[in-house]
């Protein structure tokens, strides 16, 4: 019974998980920033096993589909590593956010 607080603390630490930032990059930010768009991709790793990184490949197309007739500028790409439980459960998430810039109508 006297070890209960310590055990509860360990359990809380083990179940809360951690997020690590692996990389961040950005492109030039446009003046027109009224329409933000976002796309992300995610993969769960059991026992840290991962045999390819193809889950990132669709990110550009996902983002383009959010603004099909314009350009996306000011893209902030963020790559995170998530640890749910040491060694057993991990994940990786790549998020890209930007601004949809539509072509101006001819005056």
């Amino acid at each position, binding site marked *: 019974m006297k070890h209960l607080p310590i055990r509860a603390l360990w359990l809380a630490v083990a179940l809360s998980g951690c997020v690590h930032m692996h990389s961040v*990059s950005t492109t030039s930010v446009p003046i027109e920033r009224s329409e933000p768009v976002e796309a992300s991709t995610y993969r769960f790793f059991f026992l840290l096993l*991962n045999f390819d990184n193809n889950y990132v490949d669709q990110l550009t197309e996902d983002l383009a589909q959010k603004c099909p007739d314009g350009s996306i500028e000011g893209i902030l790409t963020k790559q995170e590593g998530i640890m749910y439980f040491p060694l057993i459960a991990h994940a990786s998430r790549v998020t890209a956010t930007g601004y949809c810039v539509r072509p101006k109508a001819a005056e």
Partner: protein
Amino acid sequence: MKANLQHQFRIRYIPLLGSPMRIPNRRSLLRCCGCTLLWGALSGCAVLHTTQVGEIHSPTVLQGKRFEIKVSNIGFDLDTAVAIANAVARQSDHADTVGAAGEIIKLFQTGPRTGNPVFRDDYSDRVFEMLRAECPSGRISGLVSIRETAKYPVVSGEIVKLIGYCAPEEDAP
């Protein structure tokens, strides 16, 4: 085959559940774990270091031609190599010498890095020529730069991958 399986898995009675349950014995569990580890080590693990998405012209990405460029070089995992060399040298009492040699080599490899050290780092310089060959019009959009590692025992593949979309001349942004 059936007799062999019965030999590997003992049938134990669990009173709480009230029904017999097959529990693998320690030897077969160890064999199972060993096979899983061997399979994991030999098949290689992919590690994603950095991802960067360039500016996107959506019509080019959605209607253009997708291409992928990959360049790689062999990386060398010094820690694993030293551990293996140590295990071998222990037989001949040279483990300390091998460990010291590993530490000296590490002194020449300081600073931030992604993946394992490679013998030449100019392998990624030729991506510009490869981009030109993939998209002669030069109208490239949605370029994603990926730096990844394919890990194997002792060695690794240090990969730089580019995924992009090429617009035909008439649809150029």
